[in-house]
C-alpha cells in the first residue's frame, strides 16, 4: 500500500469512523437531491437515518460542511437558476423548486447569487422580455 492509500485510509478512519453511519448520511443527502421540489421534512429524514434530529444535524454538517436545511436551500437555489436560464417566470420557478413564498425565495436568491432572480435571468438570457416583479 503506497503513501496516498495509507493516508486515505487513515483520514477516512479518523474523520468517518462509522462507515455505515456515513452511508446513511449520504442517503439522506441523496433523498434531498431527489425530493427537493416538494416539502422536505428534515425530522423524518433524520428518522430514516436512524439517528436523533440533533445527531443528524451534527453528522450532516460534519460530512457536508453545512446543515441539511442549508443544503436543501442551496439545491433549490441552484435549480432555480437553471430554470430561470430556460426562461421560466420567477413565480413559476419559485413553486417549481419547493419554495412557498415568492418574497422569501427572492430574498434567499439574492443573498446566494448576489442578484435578484429577474436581474440574473435577464443577464443570463440577454434577450427577451424583462420579468415583471
Amino acid at each position, binding site marked *: 500500500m*503506497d*503513501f*496516498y*492509500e495509507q493516508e486515505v485510509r487513515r483520514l*477516512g478512519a479518523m*474523520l468517518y469512523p462509522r462507515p455505515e453511519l456515513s452511508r446513511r*448520511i449520504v442517503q439522506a*443527502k441523496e433523498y434531498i437531491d431527489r425530493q427537493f421540489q416538494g416539502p422536505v421534512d428534515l425530522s423524518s429524514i433524520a428518522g430514516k437515518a436512524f439517528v436523533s434530529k440533533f445527531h443528524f444535524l451534527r453528522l450532516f454538517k460534519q*460530512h*457536508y460542511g453545512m446543515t441539511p436545511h442549508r443544503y436543501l436551500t442551496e439545491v433549490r437555489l441552484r435549480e432555480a437558476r437553471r430554470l430561470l436560464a430556460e426562461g421560466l417566470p420567477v413565480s413559476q420557478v419559485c413553486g417549481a423548486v419547493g419554495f412557498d413564498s415568492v418574497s422569501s425565495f427572492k430574498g434567499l436568491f439574492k443573498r446566494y447569487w448576489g442578484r435578484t432572480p429577474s436581474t440574473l435571468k435577464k443577464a443570463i438570457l440577454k434577450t427577451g422580455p424583462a420579468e415583471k416583479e
Partner: protein
Amino acid sequence: MVDDQKKALRFYTEALGFIKKRDIPMGEHSWLTVVSPQEPDGTELLLEPLGFEPARIFQKALFDAGIPATMFKVEDIQEEYRRLQGLGVVFKMPPTQMGPSTIATFADGCGNYLQIFQV
C-alpha cells in the same frame, strides 16, 4: 505533466472523453489542451510535456507516493469505474467510500495517477 503528448492526447480523449481544444506547435512539443465536451469554452487541461528535469523528479515523487496529479468529479463513480476498466484502464484504488465521497485512482499511462470522485 505528461511524458508523451501524443499518448496523453489519446488517453485523455479516447478513454476519459475530453476533446482537444488547442494544439499549437512550439518546437519539439505543443501547447496542447483538452476540455470537457459539456463546456468547450470552460477550463482547459494542459497536457504539458516534461521538459524540465526538476519537474520529472517531482512527477516521479508524486507517482511513487501514489498521489494523484489531479482529480475529476463524476456523476456515477461505479459506472465510470466499469467503463474505464472496459477500456483497459488499470485502477490502483477501486471506488472507496470516504465519508460523503467515493474516490477511485488510476494511472494515465503518462506518468500520473488521476482520481475520480463522486459526492
